């Protein structure tokens, strides 16, 4: 009987440790201790911008293309091709752009953090940092979280723009069932600034969880290179599940009770 409960018990313990660890990192940011290493936070911001933005924008652009294609043909099939803008607005802003952003964050940024911190852990670099009287958690983790919060809102908003632009290209320029003016009339009717804010909240929640999960698995990696690989894989699983949980909860919370659509009265 004990064996039956051993695995769930282990998961609960791990989850508890993760919550404790991540709370500490968030605390370091909110208590402003991280600003002692603001230079490092800026360096991490630069790394994020240089190494991750293009690939995120590229992925979201492709997702925007797909939303445009599906929306245009679906509306044509239902005899309302002029409403292709609805699909673009909702698909891009509310669901797939946040997911695409989350996937790429998990794959590029999350795993990168695990690999980097994990390598530092097994080569004693984190211990060396601690022995110098510098909190590894603050210097390595809180700075990364602050960098994500500084940079990613802008990256995400530009991502949304990339998605919208891709949908416009497909619906108006490629398929051409609707004029540019007709597309934008419907497109803007079916979204408003709070939707943008809600979408941003979803995406930043995903980004925060991904950075924290990456820090947790990287900082606590053990068992040599194999251990770092295992930690990276585990973090990817946790991040993908988390991205979908946040996506689902966000949609339920922001649009589940009220679709915020100018139809049906």
């Amino acid at each position, binding site marked *: 009987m004990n064996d039956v409960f051993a695995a769930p018990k282990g998961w609960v313990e791990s989850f508890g440790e993760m919550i404790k660890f991540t709370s500490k990192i968030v605390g370091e940011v909110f208590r402003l201790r991280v600003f002692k290493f603001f230079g490092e936070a800026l360096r991490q911001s630069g790394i994020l911008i240089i190494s991750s933005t293009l690939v995120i924008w590229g992925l979201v652009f492709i997702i925007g293309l797909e939303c445009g294609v599906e929306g245009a043909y679906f509306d044509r099939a239902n005899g309302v091709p002029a409403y292709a803008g609805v699909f673009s607005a909702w698909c891009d802003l509310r669901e797939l752009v946040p997911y695409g952003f989350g996937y790429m964050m998990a794959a590029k940024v999350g795993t990168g953090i695990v690999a980097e911190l994990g390598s*530092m852990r097994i*080569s004693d*670099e984190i*211990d*060396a*940092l*601690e022995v110098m009287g510098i909190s590894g958690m603050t210097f390595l983790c809180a700075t990364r979280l602050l960098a994500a919060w500084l940079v990613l809102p802008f990256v995400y908003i530009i991502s949304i723009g990339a998605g919208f632009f891709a949908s416009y290209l497909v619906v108006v320029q490629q398929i051409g069932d609707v004029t540019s003016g007709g597309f934008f009339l419907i497109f803007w009717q079916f979204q408003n600034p709070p939707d943008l804010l809600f979408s941003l909240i979803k995406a930043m929640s995903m980004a925060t969880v991904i950075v924290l999960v990456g820090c947790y698995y990287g900082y606590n990696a053990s068992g040599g290179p194999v251990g770092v690989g295992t930690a990276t894989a585990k973090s990817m699983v946790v991040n993908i599940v988390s991205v979908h949980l946040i996506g689902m909860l966000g949609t339920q919370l922001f649009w589940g009770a009220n679709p915020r659509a100018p139809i049906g009265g």
Partner: protein
Amino acid sequence: MRRFNFGGKSEGDEGNPEGSNPAEGESPAPDAPGSEPAPASEAPAGDEPKSDSWLPAGREDWEQPGDEPAPIGGEHDSPRGEQGGGAAPESEAPVAGGQASQAQPAADAQATAETQARGAGGAEGNDSETGTGSGSQESGSRVSVVDEQPPRPAPPDGADEEEYRWHTYRVYPSGRPDAVEFIDTYKSFGRARILRGLNMGLPEGMVSMVLGPSGTGKSVCIKHIVGLLYPDQGDVLVHGESVPNMADDDLFEMRKKFGLLFQDGALFGSMNLYDNVAFPLRQHTEKGEDEIDDIIMRRLNEVGLGSARDKMPNELSGGMRKRAGFARALVLEPDIVMFDEPDSGLDPVRTALLGELILEIHRDMMDEAKEKEKEHLPTFAVVTHDIMSARRVADYINVLWKGRIVEAGPAEDMLNSENPFIRQFLAGESQGPLTMD
């Protein structure tokens, strides 16, 4: 501190698994008439302590006669041949394990000769600074402050007396206060019990070695000292402060006292050599870049890496990484510098050179500490199982096995120990208590 101080080295208690008190039932040495420590005031004329001008402020009482005199002449007081030939307090203080006073002179003379040879070139001949104790080698007596030996500690849970039969727990006094102390420290990782009631001290102002077979917890000790690991039981004190009981902020502050050379240097892979060494200075000081540059280049030149300043860690050899780690460990001028197996992966010549570098820098730091009258003298601790390094570098040796100290004391005492385990280990012999099991 609950260390077990056995002042004298008597043959009768060597390898005494039953732990009987070696002093009991033995006649005191001729020059040690009593079993009680002689008060300083009773010291004979001419045995007054020399001027301890090198001692940190407020620490002039470290080596007062009848207080805690060095067990053997000046070796312990003046590491690496600094001992002078000045008069020293002796004789009137008691000798525990009195036979040692008669059996020891020959061994002491040999040890002294070795020490002097080792210190050749570095000997300062600074009698007034070396202070007390030099003269005791002339009498051959080993003086102890311990007049009563504690009972032999019980073996740890799950172990029998036979398993710890070679642990005499004898600690020859160093004549210095301990910068670092382990007090009944236990540490386990899962089912692996690493530290099993460890009592150990690293004396201030000395180069101490923690020797022992692989897997006995030497590196674990270092991690306890700097607060990277916490004991399951017991305590670890650094300059009298309990490390496990420190708040995080205090711990990070305390860690500034430390320099630690990791096995592979632990250089930051994202920075070049120069930035690695400059990192602690940039984080912890307000020094300008010019001043930092001066310090970094001085340290890099000391370790022979001045020309490699722009190289990344992955462009350096193992030996270079170790030397770079050494330079980085020293830039904040720490009170305590620790080396985790500095000889691993190095060829014998470079191991010897690194040992010389350790001695040289310790000597420089000692001079600087005396000059600046620092509160604490620089303490170096080297964790290794390389016997040649121990012979070359150590002032003080702790031999660790099965999570406890077998014996500890100044290098000469340990190198001349009659304990079969110590003898086997320090001689690197295959026959003896230590087997592959």
